[in-house]
């Protein structure tokens, strides 16, 4: 393989890896419903089942980088709290080493089979099925991720035959710092300490490397793979970033622990690596695999009692972002569904919380903005959608658990409110985008500001109307009366008063007023659902 081919292979591998990670995160968000979360929450509550899950995940994926980012996507989607994810990851590190030991799993062939099966799924339109599309999407993302890793490994593999690498090895033999540095660099390139450990084992087997040097290289590879995860996760923010930081410190901590133990044993004269194969009767490559395994095991066991402290530190280093805080439940809790009637009230509070953020979507388009937004409107809308989507999943779970017909009716009503709130966010974003186009128009700027202000008023009253007393509800019901004729009047008046209005402005005027009409209608629909049982004949309230 020429240097260009080698670089292209690693570069393409990285590209596929990034696509896979991003797509996997997106599909996992849709897939990780409450039932899956409950299952994961159950498994990770027990330290032994967590250890088993981590070992299997590490062994199957053959990459702690992949496990880190799959777990990160579970954290992002709210399926797994960081405190339970960190032990899982610790054991996954040990899981990956099983394959260095066995060294039989050909991941590339498995990925090809997986891609073939996904291709068939696409052929049979399973990617369009509502039930299966996210499963197919997730599998494709996983296949791309592993294909990327396989390409990186394929690109990095010829390094074994490189004469330059061999010369460098001869030069640095017996110098721990340089050997560790080499291992770290190789691991950064290969994106996997397991690959480097496997390559090192092969070199020990072929006599290119002696056992003491190979152990130092593997220690470096361990540190390098931690740094590599940290670099790959540098684009993440908040809680999802915590796992990359954890993985980096885990790898460094386990390497440090292993080296301390090894050097102590050497100093005490209890162990001599160079003569260990002869003393034990085991091959040097097998001993190297054991060394790599014990490094991960030491890390996993050493960090078990420190997990709480580490998680608190991670929270300080990369605290949850404002977007995450908005998208997470503030009132609903893990066992809230056990008491359906209280749960419905908590759902209403979460919906009101989402509604409370909606006026901010209009803030940049007001004539006199009144506050600095801490979260960009687009991110705010995404967070509110995520929150409402999670609320919707919770309502599904509540329906399954509720034997009472009256509660199911209330749940259905909350489902409708939820879906109207989602539509409100979509229409509000379109309205805001349209309003942004009118800022420079001498004809439309003023009416647009007035419409924005009117909507801002109604939206800022919505949270109280959802959860507050009857007066708040009645007041909003009154001011959100049908606007069809009012908007028609506004259109006609502007068109009559302004002789020079362009076709583009006319179109913007029509869209803006129609969207305003729809948004007011949606607010009215929400109000109708909220108190449909207590206010069967919702009237107007004139003071």
């Amino acid at each position, binding site marked *: 393989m020429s240097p260009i081919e080698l670089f292209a292979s690693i570069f393409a591998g990285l590209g596929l890896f990034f696509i896979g990670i991003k797509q996997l995160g997106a599909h996992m968000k849709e897939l990780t419903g409450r039932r899956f979360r409950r299952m994961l929450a159950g498994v990770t509550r027990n330290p032994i089942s967590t250890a088993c899950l981590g070992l299997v995940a590490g062994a199957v994926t053959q990459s702690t980088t992949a496990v880190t980012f799959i777990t990160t996507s579970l954290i992002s989607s709210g399926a797994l709290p960081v405190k339970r994810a960190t032990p899982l990851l610790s054991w996954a590190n040990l899981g990956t080493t099983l394959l260095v030991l066995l060294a039989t799993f050909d991941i590339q062939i498995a990925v090809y089979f997986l891609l073939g099966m996904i291709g068939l799924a696409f052929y049979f339109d399973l990617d369009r099925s509502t039930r299966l599309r996210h499963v197919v999407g997730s599998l494709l993302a996983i296949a791309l991720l592993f294909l990327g890793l396989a390409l990186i490994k394929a690109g990095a593999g010829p390094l074994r035959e490189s004469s330059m690498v061999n010369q460098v090895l001869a030069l640095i033999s017996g110098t721990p710092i340089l050997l560790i540095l080499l291992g770290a660099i190789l691991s950064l390139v290969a994106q996997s300490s397991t690959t480097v450990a496997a390559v090192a084992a092969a070199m020990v087997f072929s006599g290119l490397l002696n056992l003491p040097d190979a152990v130092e290289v593997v220690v470096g590879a361990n540190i390098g793979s931690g740094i590599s995860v940290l670099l790959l996760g540098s684009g993440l923010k908040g809680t999802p970033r915590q796992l990359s930081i954890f993985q980096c410190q885990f790898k460094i901590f386990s390497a440090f622990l292993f080296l301390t133990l090894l050097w102590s044993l050497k100093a005490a004269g209890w162990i001599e690596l160079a003569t260990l194969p002869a003393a034990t009767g085991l091959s040097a490559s097998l001993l190297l695999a054991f060394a790599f395994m014990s490094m991960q095991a030491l890390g996993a066991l050493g960090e078990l009692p420190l997990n709480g402290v580490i998680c608190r530190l991670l929270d300080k280093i990369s605290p949850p972002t404002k977007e995450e805080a908005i998208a997470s439940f503030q009132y609903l809790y893990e066992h809230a569904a056990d008491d359906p009637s209280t749960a419905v009230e908590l759902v209403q509070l979460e919906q009101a919380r989402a509604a409370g953020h909606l*006026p901010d979507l209009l803030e940049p388009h*007001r*004539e*006199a903005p*009144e*506050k600095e937004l801490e979260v960009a409107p687009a991110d705010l809308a995404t967070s509110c959608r995520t929150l409402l989507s999670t609320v919707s999943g919770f309502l599904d779970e509540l329906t399954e658990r509720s034997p009472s017909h009256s509660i199911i009716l209330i749940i259905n009503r909350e489902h409708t409110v939820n879906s109207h709130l989602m539509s409100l966010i979509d229409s509000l974003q379109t309205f805001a985008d349209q309003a942004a186009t009118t800022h420079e128009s001498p004809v439309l700027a*003023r009416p647009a500001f*007035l*419409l924005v*202000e*009117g909507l*801002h*008023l*109604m939206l*800022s*009253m919505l949270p109280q109307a959802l959860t507050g007393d009857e*007066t708040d509800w009645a*007041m909003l019901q*009154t*001011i*959100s*009366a049908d*606007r069809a004729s*009012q908007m028609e009047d*506004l259109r006609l008046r502007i068109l009559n008063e302004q002789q020079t209005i362009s076709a583009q402005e006319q179109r913007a005027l029509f869209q803006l007023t129609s969207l305003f009409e729809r948004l*007011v209608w949606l607010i009215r629909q929400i109000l109708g659902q909220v108190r449909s049982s207590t206010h069967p004949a919702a009237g*107007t*309230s*004139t*003071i």
Partner: protein
Amino acid sequence: MQLSFEHPEPQILQVILDGRLDIIGANEIDMRFNTTVSSSQEPVLIDLDKTSFMSSIGIRLLLGAAQALKRKDIYCAIVRPQKPVKEALRLSGLDQAIPVFDTLEAGIEAAT
């Protein structure tokens, strides 16, 4: 934002809002406006003749006071809004909840 009170008729409280009723203006008058208007035992006419701008927070201030008066069954109306402010009141739907009059006289007549 300036806030003053008058009695155009012995039993009617006229609340004059002078300036921009945005977040700054609303904060300036909030306490005094709410205390006086909400505790009024007489019909209240909120005079917007000198109000040049009204944001949603300003409209909520008026709505809040009007709601408090409604609970005591005391009449409340808005009088003499300038054209841009009147348009803001109309598009926000406030005119559906509080009567709006173009003249002070019309407001007094409705209140008595």
